[in-house]
Structures are given as C-alpha cells and as structure tokens.
C-alpha cells in the first residue's frame, strides 16, 4: 500500500535518539528474517548497519530513543516531515526511558556528578518521548522491544493495516502459558498485573517478578497493586522504586511513584494523597 515511486518498494529508515541501541539491534537480531526483509523493503537509512543512504521521504521511520537535547527536538521535527509513518520502538522513544529519571531530579546536579566540566554539555532538563514533540503513528513497547512484535509492526506498516499488538497485561500471558503466579504462590513482588504483555511472561517463567519493562497496560490499576505490595511488607520507597525504572515517565507509573514518594516524605499539608 505504501510504496515510494522512486524505488518500487517501501522505504525504511531507522533513527536514533538517546538510547542504548538495543531496540535497533533487535532488527539485526532477526537473523532468519533479515534478508527477506531487505528484499521486501528498501533499507534507506540505517547508519548502524550501512553507510549507504537513500534520500527521503521515507515510508516508514523507526525511531529509537528519547529526546534529551535541543538539537533532537529539531531533528525529530524534520524526521516527521519526511516520513509517512513514524513508529517509535522501545521504552525510551515511547515513554522517555531510564534516562527520564532526571525528570524527578535536578539535571544541573546530575551534570556535575558525572562530568568535571558541565559547561561542555548541551542537555535538556527532561527526557521526553517522541510523542511529546510530533505525532506518532504507532508506539511499540518494551525495554527492549520483542522481535516478533517488531516484525508484526513492519509487516502491518507495509500492508497498510493496524498492527496486532495486545494491550492487556502480562498476567494474561502467564495464564495462557500456565506459569504459576509468582505473586500468589511465592509472594514475589510482580508488576505483571499493571504491565502490558509482549515479552511472553519472561520474568515469571524465570521465577522472577515482572519489573514492568513493557510499560503500563491499558487502564492499569497501579494503586491497587501498590497497596497490595505495601500490605505484603514493602516500604513506600521500594514501591516507588519499582514504578520508577525503564518507563518511569509513563503517566500511570509516574503518578504512582509520586504517590509513594509523597507518602514517604509528608508535605506541609500532612501525609501525601
């Protein structure tokens, strides 16, 4: 459906902002599908894989990473203008990533902790998702993204349909796989009830509680889960920390971590909400 007249095949571009490269590596990790993909689309811009560049516009732009510098705000604007579809890949591009922990702190102080000459740096006080700056056609979750979900999104983009990516919770995946509930059976703190599926219930399969790397599911009840974790003996500080990791700036997780933070440090009006 989306084809670029100049090439006869849809063109794909891969862009990087503040990130670890892990999500675009996921594209190169499609070892069995990579050559077929290179046959189905023109890989027009993907500097991590090739120095060959086909000029835009592009049919599909995959964007990895969050916006953290003034230059990046301008760059994402230019990418949006030359792309039919903008698809964010991973927690950084979709919610700001682990580097959004700066949003809860003081960046001036962060700079001086890491760098002897903070004046050499150009950086913003907040790490923000791509959607805070331009319209995004689809947001693929995960830290990192799942290979099969990426292939589904690429196939859907080429075929001009909506990707089939579930928005229910990790709990549904656990039940489907017949994994014993680590929270109920072992009292292990688990973010599965509020986290979007997509990983295949990986952590519970390894006898570990979910740590929320796919971000909040559709309409999560973060407070109810927090109350249960508190009742099981976790401190407010620990509950705050588990909501404040790779999707710390996603709205539901941000609100819950701040609720816990307020409970931890009473405000002038007394206890927090």
């Amino acid at each position: 459906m989306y084809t670029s007249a100049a090439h006869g095949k849809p063109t794909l571009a891969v862009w990087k902002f503040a990130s670890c490269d892990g999500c675009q590596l996921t594209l190169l990790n499609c070892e069995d599908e990579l050559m077929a993909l290179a046959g189905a689309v023109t890989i027009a811009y993907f500097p991590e894989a090739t120095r060959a560049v086909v000029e835009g516009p592009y049919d599909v732009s995959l964007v990895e990473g969050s916006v953290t510098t003034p230059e990046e705000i301008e760059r994402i604007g230019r990418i949006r203008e030359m792309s039919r579809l903008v698809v964010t890949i991973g927690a950084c591009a979709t919610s700001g990533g682990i580097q959004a922990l700066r949003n809860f702190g003081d960046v001036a102080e962060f700079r001086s902790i890491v760098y002897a000459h903070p004046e050499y740096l150009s950086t913003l006080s907040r790490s923000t998702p791509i959607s805070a700056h331009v319209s995004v056609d689809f947001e693929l979750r995960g830290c990192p993204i799942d290979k099969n979900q990426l292939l589904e999104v690429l196939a859907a983009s080429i075929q001009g349909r909506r990707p089939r990516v579930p928005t229910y919770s990790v709990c549904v995946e656990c039940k489907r796989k017949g994994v014993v509930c680590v929270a109920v059976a072992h009292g292990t703190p688990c973010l599965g009830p509020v986290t979007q599926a997509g990983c295949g219930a990986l952590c519970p399969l390894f006898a570990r509680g979910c740590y929320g790397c796919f971000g909040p599911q559709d309409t999560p009840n973060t407070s109810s889960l927090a109350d249960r974790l508190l009742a099981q003996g976790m401190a407010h500080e620990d509950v705050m920390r588990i909501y404040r990791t790779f999707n710390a700036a996603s709205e539901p997780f941000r609100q819950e971590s701040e609720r816990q933070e307020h409970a931890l440090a009473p405000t002038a009006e007394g206890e927090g909400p």
Partner: protein
Amino acid sequence: MSHKLTDGGQVLHVGTLARVEGEGGMHLEIHDGHVTQVELRIFEPPRFYEAFLRGRAWTEPPDITARICGICPVAYQFSACMALEDVCGVSVPEAIGTMRRLLYCGEWIESHALHVYLLHAPDFLGYPGAIEMAKDHGPVVERGLRLKKVGNQLMTLVGGRSVHPINVRLGGFYRMPSVAELRGLRPALEQGLEDALETVRLVSTFDFPEMQQPYTYLSLRPASGYPIEAGRVVTTAGGDWDVREWPQHITEHHVAHSNALHATLDGEGPYVVGPLARYTLNHDRLSPLAQQAAAEAGLGTTCRNPFRSIIVRAVELVEVLHEALRIIDGWRDGVPPSVPVPARAGEGFGATEAPRGVLFHRYTLDEAGTILDAQIVPPTSQNQPSIEADLRELAEAWVRLSDHDLSHRCEEAIRNYDPCISCATHFLDLTVERS
C-alpha cells in the same frame, strides 16, 4: 563535506559515522599537508547513569546499568554484580561463576559476529554494509548471521533474552538452565565452532594496512583460562594489580569535544583495551584449537596492528564457542541458582571483559544498601585517546587522498576498535580542516 577556512585552512566534515553503535563524528585539521588536530566527537547525549544510580537500592544496578548498552548488557550486569558483591563481602560459588562465563560467551559470540560480519567485513570487501555485501557474498553473510544467532540463542537460554537479559541477579541467577536444555544447544554450537574456524580463514585473507601500535595494552587475566568474566588487571608495561586498585592507576578526564570521558593509565597517556590487548596479554591462555587457528591465520603471540583486530575477534569467536561447549559438557544439575547478598556499608570494585574491552564499576553503599556513589568506566572511553592517536598517524599518511576517501579510511580505522558510543557517553561525524 569540506570547506575552506578564512585562515586558508580546510575542514572536512563527515556526517554520522556509519556501522558503529551509537552517535559520533570526527574532526581533522590539516595545515600545509600535515595533520594538526584530531578529535573524536561523541554526540551521544549524556544519560547520567552515575547520577541517577544514587539513592537506588544495591540490588538494582545489574538491571539498570544493562540499559547503558544494548550490544553488551551482560558486561554491565556482571561488572555491577562483581562490584556490589565486593562491597557486601560475598564471593559466589565456582559453579555460579561458570554459568556467568557461559552467558558471557553468548554475548561475545553475538557481539563479535555482529562486528566481524555486519560492521567490519564490508570495509575489507568494499561494500557499504552487509545487506549490500550479501548480493555477492551470500554464504558469507549467512554464516555471520548463523553465528550471531547461536550467540543470541545461548543468551536467551541462560539469560531469558539476548538484549537486556532478565535472569541475572546479585549472587547468581533467578533460575539455572538444566543439563537437558543446555545439551539441546550443542548441535548449533558445534556448527558455530566450525563457522568460527571458517571465519578466521576468511578474514586472514583480507588486505591489511601496515601499522604497529606503540600503546600500552591493558586486560584482565584470571587464575586460569582466557579473560572473560573475572581476573586481575595486567598491562604490557608490567602492571599486575587487583581490580580494587583501579582508582590508583586509571584517571578519567573530561574534554570539550566529547561527552565521553577520556581515561589514562598511571598518568602516562593512552592505553588500549579490547581484543588486541586481551590476545597479546593472554595468548598462552587460549585453547590449543584457538592458538592453532591464530597461527594458521598468520598471527604471532602478540598483535599490534589495529586493522588485524578482525582476525583476533575471529580467533576469540573460536575460543568462546569452544569454551561454551566445554562448560555445557561439564555442567551438572542441582546447583542452587543464587546465594544471598545482604547489604553492607562500604566501597566495592568490579571489572569484566566486555567484547570491546575492560568495563569497570565502583559503588559505595550505606548500611541499608542505598547507593551513595557510582562510577562506570566503559571500554570505548578508555580507547578514545588511542583512536585519536591512530587517526593522527594514519591521516598524516593518507593526507593526499580526497576528502571522500580520507574520511572513509578514517572511519575504517575507528571501526577497528568496535567502538560502542552508547556505552562511552559519559561518539561519529567527521570533519577535516585543510590549508
């Protein structure tokens, strides 16, 4: 692109460096046919890991610092585990160390196969990338992808997934893989070992520019075996010290043109970490099979030509595939997946060999296990001064090339180091100034 300066000098500006992990560029100034200034510029925006680790719990750095690099997350996880276990006075049982080594073998296979076949080989065979290279060298690219896949399979089995594995914790793992699961990977690993030996043969036929590096090499060296997940620090300058002495030997500097900190050894300037350093300092620790492959590829017991690092990476592929098979064959079920690591106040140090070189972590904890201070020294920031020194020498020899050819050759010299720019920030766009 190049443009004249008002003082008669000339600048060559090359866009984002391709086929490296992360974002960076390079700036060259050439006056009267001589290179006067070389700067590797790291644009990768700072993410402030060392700052936001403060106030986190002692159990969190393995998962958090993995996100520094999607290519070598296991390196971050294990350097963090070692440093935090050091603070808490815990040393893990030998079997847990062995399973860590196996997971790390998976990361080396995946990362080295990615670099040798997808990032570096196209330079030698004359293609912009592996996908274009596949049109003429289909079986070669297929072999590279097969090797990469078996590395990822090993990481997925032991770690849960290949990017940011979920099965690593302080004190060990959440779940141990069974002998039956491990043996299931044997046929793919055996094919991988054949592919690795074929890789050594292939890359040994490439044309390499002559170059001898005078730099000091630094690597780990364990009590036995090739350095991967542990060891003392050794250097070609005769250094041999415990990882705990790192701060007394290594100094980091912040320079204006880079968001990565530069490191120097004993105040004496550049040193090199990574495959060349490991090989030169630990050739005697390679398996006879890897030693034989190296000899047949024309490598001596040391290697000081950074362009030949692709052969050393291929030899290391042989080593870690052989090692993975050895570990799997010796594994017995019934090892408890982890030992407890209760918090304790103090300072701890940890270093492991990431595929691209030594990765150092240091943490200070209070008695509740809250992180007071964290320091991370990634391999690319240690190599950055040496990369610049290489470029200064090479650009001087290549100064008569066109800007286009010069920038391509310089990019190739940078790729010798398999730089990981995402890691180093705290890297490439090339500019050349001429007069």
